[in-house]
């Protein structure tokens, strides 16, 4: 029983992490139809800046709100700096070109950001695990479990609710839906499409950096974390369906629980659970669980 509880808690924590890192990728793809290969690098930048802010400004006993505030600040700084720059200066010039050119462009940006991260923070691991230890742990059904993962789950749920609210209940959500449905018609209706694109890309960048910043206290940061995150978040959104935030949420929960179960019951499968699920889903539902089939036109 206790083991099952641990599996469940670990799985939910991992699912929350997966959702935080993949929401931005699927959101950007949903609006712009461009898969941002620099997503993992924005995650890494957010993580490094978040860790730096924590190391400089947060004393070891600081409050939850202060810590979260600092991490959120790091994410917003990275997103506001990198998002509009990448979209306005580079991405905008290739919307009319082939999909593989757009992929190459974001790949080039990812290579550049990879070295920018190394130049700023060096190659030695950065550790900022104070929140993880100082928040203490909670006793639940006879086991002691750290607080921080619960916080992560809370933030993920909050983010999911916020995104759902924005998309379904605000004017902005309607504008996004219009642009996704038809770029040209929404332009004739008076929507400034380029501005929507810049906004959507920046929002995706902030989400990526937020995913990084929030998980900075859990892992030590080393060069190359960006690539892993990109591949894992792609697997999650491929399971859910590219462009679907709900799909990303469901994919995160499925993969999170499956991986946590694998870690405890079939440890040798740990690494492969996520790709195994992805392959199975794609074999039977090529467009993902919540994806829409694209009609090919001549």
């Amino acid at each position: 029983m206790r083991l099952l509880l641990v599996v469940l808690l670990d799985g939910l924590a991992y699912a929350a992490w997966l959702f935080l890192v993949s929401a931005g990728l699927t959101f950007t793809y949903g609006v712009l139809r461009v898969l941002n290969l620099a997503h993992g690098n924005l995650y890494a930048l957010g993580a490094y800046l978040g860790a730096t802010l924590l190391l400089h400004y947060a004393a070891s006993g600081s409050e939850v709100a202060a810590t979260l505030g600092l991490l959120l600040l790091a994410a917003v700084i990275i997103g506001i700096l990198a998002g509009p720059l990448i979209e306005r200066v580079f991405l905008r010039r290739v919307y009319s070109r082939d999909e593989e050119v757009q992929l190459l462009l974001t790949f080039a940006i990812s290579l550049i950001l990879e070295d920018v991260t190394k130049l700023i923070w060096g190659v030695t691991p950065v550790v900022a695990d104070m929140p993880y230890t100082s928040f203490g742990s909670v006793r639940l059904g006879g086991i002691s479990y750290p607080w921080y993962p619960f916080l992560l789950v809370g933030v993920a749920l909050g983010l999911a609710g916020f995104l759902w609210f924005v998309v379904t209940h605000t004017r902005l959500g309607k504008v996004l839906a219009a642009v996704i449905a038809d770029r040209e018609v929404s332009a004739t209706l008076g929507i400034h499409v380029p501005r929507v694109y810049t906004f959507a890309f920046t929002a995706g960048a902030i989400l990526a950096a937020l995913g990084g910043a929030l998980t900075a206290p859990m892992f030590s940061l080393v060069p190359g974390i960006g690539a892993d995150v990109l591949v894992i978040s792609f697997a999650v959104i491929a399971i859910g369906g590219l462009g679907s935030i709900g799909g990303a949420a469901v994919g995160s929960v499925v993969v999170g629980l499956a991986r946590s179960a694998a870690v405890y019951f079939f440890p040798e499968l740990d690494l492969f659970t996520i790709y195994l699920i992805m392959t199975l889903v794609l074999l039977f539902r090529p467009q993902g669980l919540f994806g829409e089939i694209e009609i090919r036109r001549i």
Partner: protein
Amino acid sequence: MGGSLRFIPFLLLGLALITAPFVLSGWVLFLLTVAGAKALAVLGVVLLLRAKLLTFGHALYYAAGAYAAGLGVKYLGLHNGFALIGLAFVAGLGVSALLGLLVIRYRGVYFALLNLAFSMVLYGILLKFYSVTGGTDGLAFPAPTFGLIGLSEASLRAQLYELTLFLGSLLFYLTYRFFASPAGYVLFAIRDNEVRVAYMGISVNAAVYLGYIIAGGLAGVAGVLVGLSVGHITPDLAFWSQSGEFVFVAILGGVGSVFAPVVGSILFEFVRNYAFELSPYTWQMTLGAALLLIIFFLPGGVWSLVGLARTRSGP
């Protein structure tokens, strides 16, 4: 000029390449061997790019070839170079034939990232199963035999160079013939309009599957040739940055000709050799910036400059 004299420059180039080991120093020969071998993997990427398929996981087959040969040395006690190359070729074909069943159903973003995901899985396997693959330590290649006896280190290097030259030329010629064959033209047609190709009664997936397997086999051979030259293989062969390098060289050279990957590959290996020593932390940044420049200003790659020069100087 009469067509009968066209072959003379090629003949001179061929002679120069064959006699190179008598003139060039060891490390230049080594770089040329590695560049030539990697050009085979890049050729596979170019082949897929001709059908508008971009892969960020081609190092998967590169590493599969190298490790198939490495495991052949470790468990089967193989030392014959030709047997190792055959093993790597079969491994490249086999793995791509298996994964191709799933991957060829996808285009665009999915195709690129599924390949990336599978290559990262192989990377994980190579790292994790230490007892079989040697983990981060990798596997060592003892000096292979090619049916000749009494090899010193220098003559082994020259032999590997000649082997890469001949085998590479053969594979490049075969790929060139493939490009000029109906099946090769189908790939080009898919690039322009996939649905119309299907309407003509041609199976798009069968053509893509064939191209995918050929690309896998080419990368497998590339992997073992590089492994033999370096004498040692590590999981880094399967890492995403290796796949990215293949894509970069393919774009650098351009997809217009089978010669482009060779030119791109040699250019790349020599520039890296110097640039990496100057500043190791800005190497990827340099690659990224160069890629941006190519995307915006030279969409046809370096090889398109040759075509440009031809049309300007020609009548």
